[in-house]
């Protein structure tokens, strides 16, 4: 059992975790009933799925150009995916007619928006 063997097994495991989260995001994209639920599942593709795959490549390659760029790409996706999801969610709340928010049990953001006006 050499070090390369352990690194390969670890990298394969992280790659499988990333693929599993991509799969979960796609199932949610088909099955979820609302914009906000779909947003909730597809953000996991960016934060856990893509970051997992990129970390897997970094573990496999090491400090070479491909590994450094994979790490940079993973950190960039991890930073920007929640920001994009936040912007889409806010836009969908203000100007999208959606199914779930009209019969929601509690809606604090609407009350806060009305209090600000």
């Amino acid at each position, binding site marked *: 059992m050499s070090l*390369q*063997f352990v690194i*390969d097994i670890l*990298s*394969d495991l992280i*790659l*499988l975790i*990333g*693929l599993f989260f*991509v*799969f979960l*995001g*796609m*199932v949610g*994209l*088909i099955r979820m009933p609302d*914009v906000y639920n*779909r*947003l909730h599942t*597809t953000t996991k*593709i*960016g934060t856990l*799925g*893509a970051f997992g*795959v*990129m970390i897997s*490549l970094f573990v*496999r*390659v090491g400090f070479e*150009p*491909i590994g450094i*760029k*994979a790490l*940079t*790409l993973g950190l*960039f*996706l991890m930073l*920007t*995916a929640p*920001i*994009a*999801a936040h*912007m*889409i969610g*806010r*836009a*969908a709340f*203000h*100007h*999208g*007619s*959606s*199914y779930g928010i009209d019969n929601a049990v509690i809606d604090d953001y609407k009350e806060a928006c009305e209090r600000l006006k």
Partner: protein
Amino acid sequence: MWQYPKTRKICLGGFRMSSILLSFALTFMAFTLVPCIYRLIKGPTLSDRVVALDAMAMVIVVILGVYSYVRDSVFFMDVALVLAIIAFVGTIAIAKYIDKGVVF
């Protein structure tokens, strides 16, 4: 079995585990684009389509990353980085367009 052109992975007793897993990853993520296209066509509101487009760009970025490792070429990773940046800026622009009616 079909082998990739330039691989630098170890052979585990003549059995290339990593090569099989990377082939599976590329095939799986190519099939993963189908739900995005479904939601892109069928989505009831504009926000659904933006969500599907964002997820699709992210999956393509992951495909490019894995393909860059498989082909042992750095340039696909540059393409993936540029595509990630452009997808982020485009998502922000469309969200601001839905919200306010203007982009800037």
